[in-house]
């Protein structure tokens, strides 16, 4: 009852830019085992330049939704369009790769290749580009790629650690390397799955600051999940709440009230 009231209300108040949305999902469903619906009819639009936070309690399907959006998991039903191309169970491999190449992805943790240098890890972000078999090590990559990698590292303030092994860095630093890797290709869209969840509060805030600042500077659309209410409200223009595989509410960040959050995270 509450969901319906809020949903219709936000649909009216959100002003919609002219251009087609970057991501458009209609009635999106996803189930891993054909019985339990993890995502149960998600309607969602994300426009270029927005910063959107996706919130919800643990296990409500946030990661599943993000991975479905870029075709890491096939969707079970509904329609999904990314960058104007339909994504579905039937989308071709080439299409999915094409889409991923316009997207940067940052995971919660452990997403760097531990035994490689920081710079090599950042250059991995160019995988999928022409001639990228050389991207596995910075020492073999083209000079231009090395320069881009180092510059991306400089943006996250880690250029001096370029030759360290990735696992020699602290958790917060590793996450900043992951951001550099996601941004080295200047994607249109940056997706981050709980980027701050494994960090201490101060590093977490630094990482979130870096995200919102870099995305604004480069005009990159940001979609991130969080189970931290402050992160969701402070760094996003819009907040979408998930509950039981459905969208609970979708409204501008400044209009999210403590009561909304309580409903989102309570049993």
């Amino acid at each position, binding site marked *: 009852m509450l969901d319906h009231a809020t949903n219709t209300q936000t649909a009216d108040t959100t002003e919609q830019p002219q251009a087609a949305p970057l991501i458009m999902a209609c009635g999106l469903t996803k189930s891993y085992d054909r019985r339990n619906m993890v995502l149960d009819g998600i309607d969602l639009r994300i426009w270029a330049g927005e910063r959107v936070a996706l919130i919800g309690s643990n296990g409500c399907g946030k990661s599943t939704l993000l991975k479905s959006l870029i075709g890491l998991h096939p969707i079970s039903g509904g329609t999904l369009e990314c960058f104007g191309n339909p994504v579905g169970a039937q989308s071709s491999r080439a299409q999915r790769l094409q889409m991923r190449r316009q997207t940067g*992805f940052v995971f919660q943790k452990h997403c760097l290749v531990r035994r490689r240098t920081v710079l090599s890890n950042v250059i991995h972000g160019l*995988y999928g580009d022409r001639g990228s078999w050389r991207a596995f090590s910075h020492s073999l990559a083209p000079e231009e790629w090395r320069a881009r990698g180092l510059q991306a590292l400089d943006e996250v303030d880690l250029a001096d650690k370029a030759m360290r092994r990735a696992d020699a860095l602290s958790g917060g630093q590793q996450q900043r390397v992951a951001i550099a*890797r996601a941004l080295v290709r200047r994607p249109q869209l940056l997706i981050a799955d709980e980027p701050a969840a494994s960090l201490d509060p101060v590093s977490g805030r630094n990482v979130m600051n870096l995200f919102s600042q870099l995305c604004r500077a480069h005009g990159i659309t940001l979609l991130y999940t969080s189970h931290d209410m402050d992160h969701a409200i402070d760094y996003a223009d819009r907040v979408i709440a998930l509950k039981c595989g459905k969208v609970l509410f979708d409204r501008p960040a400044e209009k999210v009230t403590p009561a909304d959050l309580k409903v989102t995270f309570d049993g």
Partner: protein
Amino acid sequence: MAERTIHMPKRFTGVSPLNFVLLVALGGVILTSMGKVAPSPQQLADGVPDMTRLVGRMLPPNTDPDFLARIARRILETFQIALVGALIGIVLSLPIAWFAARSVSPLGRGNLLAKAFVSFLRTVPDLVWALLFVASIGLGAVAGTMTIVVDTIGFCGRFFAEAMEDAEKEPQEALSAIGAGRGSILVGAILPDIMPSLVNSSLFALEKAVRSSVVLGLVGAGGIGQELKVAFDLFQYRNASMIILTIFVIVFLMEVCTDKLRARIQ
């Protein structure tokens, strides 16, 4: 709220009748087998004098310079067979293991085919492979090298594939999300992650190759084993003892070297 029940795990309650029957049957099988194939005290007692006589005829080992030079050439050939065979085998094992590894393989479920192929290479013993290659390629070192190649693929193919299956999943998923293809994920994320275990398995493969290349000559596939067979066939026991000593020394040296290398890599 429903009533909560806590279950205590069962403690040992004695052997069930079924398990008891199985244990008795197992004991029976072992005892009858021992009666059939284990040496009886009588046989042991009879064998001891023959054994000492044989050892007596083996001593002292032959140290004739001409003979030693021939042995040295054979040893070199043995090493060449082991080294070249193991190297080719290790290189070939990498792509084969990639095809065989679950959830990494470009073949998808077809990985089982590659797995079965590797198992087949492994289950046929190396001496049987040597016989096959001697029969098809002819006597000599090439047949030995082929045998080592096949043997190494059987060994490394399995361990490389297992290492690839156990490689950290998160970095692979991250590269996949970037748009990297399967080959890029292999080179960029999987191989760096499993490098220590690859090197370790390869060193074991090399050790194993030296050990088996020593006996390949028994069936005519080149190397020092050929000299050993000749020595026994012609009852030249002092030559045989020298050869056995050399084999011991090279296998031992090999193990010391690979242990040292392994320790440096850890």
